[in-house]
């Protein structure tokens, strides 16, 4: 591998990396909050809301992300909705990841001891106040590990959008490899993906420590 060749590759790979990071950040930004109503919906006692939420989660977790991507980019224009490549990619990822996050939130909410709900109720909290002030803050610590797990998967899933021609990291690498008949670009892309997932792992550990303050025993 020679350094000058790597230097000529870096600008396109860097542009691809930025596109990957953009996709990653926008997906999390919208799917993390969007998961919550579906989580609360799927434990709701109002059955139409419950069925709607569960069906949503079932569809988006039960079909391949690639298929959803094709459907939204190639299929929706048939219904008069035409999205450009990047928007289609972001919309698909947000809808898909919201379903996974909904399940993580739901499990987190249901893992909180019944005594917490009862204590809040006897102090006069409404079910919604109980959720907001007592239950959800306690679930944050428990859902950080599964959420970072999903976030790491997301970094790698962004490579799927190559299939609809979004110029992210993998596409930049692939184009270089095809052009130069040299696999160096794949190697560099792997290093960049690893660096991104490494950063995420560190971040999630920091967050976990931060949110388990209250579990520390007396020192």
């Amino acid at each position, binding site marked *: 591998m020679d350094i000058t060749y790597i230097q000529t590759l870096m600008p396109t790979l860097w542009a691809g990396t930025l596109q990957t990071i953009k996709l990653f950040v926008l997906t999390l930004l919208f799917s993390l909050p969007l998961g919550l109503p579906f989580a609360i919906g799927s434990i709701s006692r109002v059955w139409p809301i419950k069925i709607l939420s569960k069906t949503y989660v079932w569809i988006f977790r039960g079909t391949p992300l690639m298929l959803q991507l094709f459907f939204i980019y190639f299929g929706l224009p048939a219904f008069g909705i035409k999205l450009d490549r990047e928007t289609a990619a972001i919309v698909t990822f947000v809808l898909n990841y919201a379903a996974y996050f909904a399940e993580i939130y739901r499990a987190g909410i249901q893992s909180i*001891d019944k*005594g*917490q709900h*009862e*204590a*809040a*109720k*006897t*102090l*006069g*909290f*409404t079910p919604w*106040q109980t959720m907001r*002030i*007592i239950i959800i*803050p*306690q679930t944050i610590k428990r859902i950080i590990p599964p959420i970072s797990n999903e976030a790491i998967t997301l970094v790698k899933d962004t490579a799927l959008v190559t299939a609809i021609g979004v110029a992210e990291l993998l596409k930049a690498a692939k184009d270089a490899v095809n052009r130069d008949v040299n696999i160096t670009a794949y190697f560099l892309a792997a290093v960049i993906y690893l660096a991104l997932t490494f950063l995420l792992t560190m971040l999630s550990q920091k967050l976990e420590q931060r949110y388990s*303050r*209250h*579990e*520390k*025993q*007396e020192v």
Partner: protein
Amino acid sequence: MPVLQIEHVKKKYGDFTALNDVSLTIEKGEAVAIIGSSGSGKSTLLRCVNNLEKISSGTIKINNETLVQTVENKAVYPPDKEIRRICMKTAMVFQHFNLFPHLTCLENITVAPTHILGKEKTVAQMQAKELLEMVGLTHKADSYPAQLSGGQQQRIAIARALAIEPEIMLFDEPTSALDPEITSEVINVIQRLAQQHMTMLIVTHDMRFAKDSASRVIYMDEGKIVEENVPEKLFANPESLRLQEFLKSIR
């Protein structure tokens, strides 16, 4: 003036009758202990009083307001908002404390006054500090529940319950989850409340606690009140055969 009136309360779980025609009136300033074996319905009765369970039929009045009454053989409750308002006159202390682990001790005490009663934060904190002093845990204000012993957690739970300024305190086996040598620190706090004429309904397995703290003791068995009396008489001269056997069995 009665703080709590329970009339002909029945509670069924499917075919099982947990409470069978229970009537009980508690006057202001009374400390009433309920004893009985597991499954006698004593905890269920307590849980019905503050709406953790719904009754099947009967009447419950708290502070002269009707929490539930029976119309055409069916228990009828007011809307949720009204239930919450009426039940706010009660406060409960649980066997397993159920403190909020993500909040400090001080925040555990102020969370309901600020969010539910709409008190100013500073006012709530001042009152919480008085309560912490009362239970002897001023130095634990900024600790989290996990950093406290069981006895300390239960004292915080009592302070948290008192913070909503209830007319009646409900204790559901407050010492059962504690090591025997530290039950006294919780019992002392409850006895101090009794001396201040706090109205209390205490479900307990601890007969000495019932004897020393209560002004009246109720013995329940199979969902019914079998016998009630002042503690000196109830423990010394139990009238019913069932209570005699119960007292023998736990000795």
